[in-house]
């Protein structure tokens, strides 16, 4: 019988070992055996994490690697700490990896010679990085797993080297994310200089003995920079659409579904354990900064999402928009906000992965993900269209999807403090969902007039993509339809199962309790004292959700049929004045993106020091 604490390192070691087995076995095993082995391995990881989730309950599981248990409150080892938010994210990553592995059965027709196991091996390495990052309680160790995630993700993004765009997107992804990671490491260096510790809880305890000063602020900003880059918060977000638009579809499912959200998780975890103590970063200050950043991110994501005709790019910007909403919810620094976001993230992962998966079917059939070019060409794929449309509705917040419940709970928490915030939630959900519905109506139903071509050289069209599979005559493989259907069902279940919400409510209370985390690291169990947030359907939440869904449908209808209507002129003026300059900022230029990264750091430094 495996001890609960040992399940933490196993969550990292199992996928690592799986990657080795697949890399070696890929030389001799037939394709079917490799796919089966990868699936079995991903399932094993999910099972292990599920047991860990179950056994950890509302407490913490703690494992001191190498048996370096603390002596008189000090240790030289690395600690892994699992609470239900961290384990839940690892479990989400595990579940998505399983979905991805099944989805990509026989996906790539031409694996590298003698290295047929490389793709699933890289996926498992990516998973190990994500699980390690979610479970570690050590700052430098978090950096290492962050980089493991990165290295695997860059390679996976550039996988289709025959096509010019993926290699370029992957290069931008790699450079911008690595630079962010080095900022984080500079911050870690400053923190180590001040405290002489690397464990999150240990640094937090030592920092409480110093006064807040410019060193603390600078270290905080630098440490979170890398994480905000990963989370694609404006203005660190530029890499995301470029990488997501070009990565193979199964990889997009992982990037959008869970990796980006891990950046937010890391930011808040580090804030809570390290910087929220006495003499730390003041909560009101942080709340104001992050809510502002969240609103900006949400609006930029929504506007840019609406403008896209490249389906994967559209979905990528929708992720940016939703990350903004998640950031708002987390920045409230309340258990209710965290609980809502946790539910929102879990359900969003299912929906977004399902949407990418269906976009992958279009890419497979028609070698294009261009909304205009595919006009009416999806009529022969009614099932795919239904899945895509349902995904769009779920993105907009249609009850009883988990996205809707998560949005309602977060909205409520946000509205308590800033009464105008629910408007942002409704608008962003409606715009991102509406964009998907618009594309769905045009592609799968062929409604409305054929979109006019007005290529002004500021956009990526999405036509002429190399299909990821080279046999359009074969029937659509069953996994490519079963996986998105299952993901949407899971998202539905997240909204309907009452036990899930209450588990996340407990988890959120635990996550927001600095004392409980620190005590658990040193072997004491402390029950959080904060009141348990309420996670459940409310009349207000359902009404707002229905409003955002209706608004999304309205947006889509107006876009498809409304070209001759009077507001069209107003729309054009807005597009010229506001939207076009915004689109021009997304220039695809590496130097621009790096500049924005430094600008973001500078703004944060000024704002946090103020």
């Amino acid at each position, binding site marked *: 019988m495996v001890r609960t604490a040992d399940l933490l*390192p196993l969550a990292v070691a199992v996928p690592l070992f799986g990657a080795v087995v697949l890399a*070696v076995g890929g030389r001799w095993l037939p394709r079917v055996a490799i796919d089966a082995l990868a699936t079995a391995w991903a399932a094993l990881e999910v099972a292990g994490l599920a047991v860990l989730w179950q056994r950890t309950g509302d407490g913490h599981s703690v494992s001191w690697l*190498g048996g370096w248990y603390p002596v008189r409150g000090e240790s030289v080892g690395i600690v892994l700490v699992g609470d239900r938010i961290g384990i839940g994210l690892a479990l989400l990553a595990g579940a998505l990896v399983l979905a991805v592995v099944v989805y990509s059965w026989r996906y790539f027709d031409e694996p590298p010679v003698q290295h047929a196991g*490389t793709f699933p091996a*890289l996926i498992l390495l990516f998973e190990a*990085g994500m699980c390690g990052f979610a479970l570690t309680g050590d700052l430098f160790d978090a950096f*290492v797993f962050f980089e*493991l995630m990165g290295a695997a993700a860059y390679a996976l993004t*550039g996988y289709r080297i025959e096509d010019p765009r993926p290699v370029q997107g992957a290069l931008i992804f790699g450079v911008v994310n690595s630079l962010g990671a080095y900022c984080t490491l500079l911050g870690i260096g400053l923190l180590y200089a001040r405290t002489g510790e690397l464990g999150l809880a240990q640094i937090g305890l030592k920092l409480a003995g110093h006064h807040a000063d410019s060193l603390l602020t600078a270290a905080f900003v630098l440490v979170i920079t890398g994480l905000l880059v990963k989370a694609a918060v404006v203005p660190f977000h530029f890499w995301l659409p470029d990488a997501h638009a070009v990565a193979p579809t199964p990889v997009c499912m992982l990037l959008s579904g869970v990796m980006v959200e891990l950046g937010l998780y890391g930011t808040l975890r580090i804030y809570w354990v390290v910087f929220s103590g006495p003499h730390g970063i003041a909560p009101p200050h942080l709340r104001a900064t992050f809510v502002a950043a969240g609103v900006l991110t949400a609006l930029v994501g929504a506007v840019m999402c609406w403008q896209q005709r490249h389906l994967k790019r559209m979905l990528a910007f929708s992720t940016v928009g939703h990350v903004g909403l998640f950031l708002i919810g987390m920045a409230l620094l309340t258990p209710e906000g965290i609980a809502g976001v946790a539910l929102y993230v879990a359900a969003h992962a299912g929906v977004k992965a399902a949407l990418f998966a269906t976009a992958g079917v279009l890419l497979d059939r028609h070698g294009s993900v261009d909304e205009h070019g595919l006009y009416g060409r999806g009529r022969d794929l009614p099932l795919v269209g239904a899945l895509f449309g349902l995904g769009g509705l779920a993105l907009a917040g249609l009850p009883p999807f988990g996205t809707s419940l998560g949005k309602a709970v977060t909205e409520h928490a946000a509205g308590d403090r800033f009464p105008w915030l629910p408007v942002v939630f409704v608008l962003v959900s409606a715009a991102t969902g509406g964009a998907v519905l618009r594309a769905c109506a045009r592609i799968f139903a062929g409604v409305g007039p054929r979109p006019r071509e007005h290529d002004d050289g500021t956009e990526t069209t999405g036509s002429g993509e190399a299909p990821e599979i080279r046999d359009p005559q074969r029937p659509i493989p069953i996994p490519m339809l079963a996986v998105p259907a299952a993901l949407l069902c899971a998202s539905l279940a997240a909204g309907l199962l009452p036990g899930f919400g209450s588990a996340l409510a407990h988890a959120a209370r635990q996550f927001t309790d600095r004392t409980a985390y620190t005590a658990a690291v040193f072997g004491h169990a402390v029950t959080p004292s904060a009141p348990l947030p309420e996670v459940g359907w409310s009349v207000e939440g359902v009404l707002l959700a229905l409003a955002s869904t209706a608004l999304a449908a309205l947006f889509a209808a107006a876009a498809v049929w409304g070209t001759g209507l009077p507001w069209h002129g107003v729309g054009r003026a807005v597009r010229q004045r506001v939207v076009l300059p915004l689109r021009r900022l997304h220039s695809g230029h590496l130097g621009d993106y790096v500049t924005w990264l430094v600008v973001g750091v*500078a703004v944060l430094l000024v704002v946090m020091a103020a």
Partner: protein
Amino acid sequence: MSRTARIRLFWVAAAVFAVAYTAACTGLPRFGTEVHPYGTRAVTSALHRHTANAVSAVNFDQRALDTLGEESILFAAVLGTIVLLRRTRDERVGQPTAGRVLPSTRLLGLVLLPVTLLTGVYIVAHGQLSPGGGFQGGVILATGLHMAYVAADYRVLKRVRPLSVLDVADAVGAGAFVALGFAGLIAGGAYLQNVLPLGTFGQLSSGGLVPVLNAAVGVEVGSGLIVLLASFLDQAVEVRSQDRSGSGGGT
């Protein structure tokens, strides 16, 4: 953004960064301070585990999980490079032509090859005692082999470089690190716990798990690096794209 606008924006942001970073540095402890709580504990723990090289003790015992993660990054990079630099449908392989090598270069390479390989093995094996270890030794082993390329030519390198074996060795080295971690669990301790006999301080056999992990890392780094370089060399020397098939590559 235009180039000038970009550079101006950068200077503004960089100025803010410079001011904030300088202000932060004034809050740091004095350069060369006596206070290194973690470092002091790490040295004590290293000596406790009979590991004379405290840096190796941190890397392979106290913070072995970091090293496991870093090993995996290397493994991911090797797999990634194999994928990214694979030969595509529209590329064909050219025949590298032999370049001219001075006899003195050839002789020097012949002498240095065994010396370098021996040095590599020595540095891997003494990681627990003196500066060095699996990474440093592994890199020397990998570069040593490329002496064959410098002193002879690409075809000789290909003969002394059994890629399919090294490829597997790289994965096995990475797998061995993961698997050695299980030793602690089997012995009833924690993952990656140093449960092997610690030996006599200052001896080659001291340090318990440290030299064993070092050997695993040495195998992985050495073979991984050769595979990595092979992908790049293949691209530079052998692979021709369809449209520029005329140019032959000298070695």
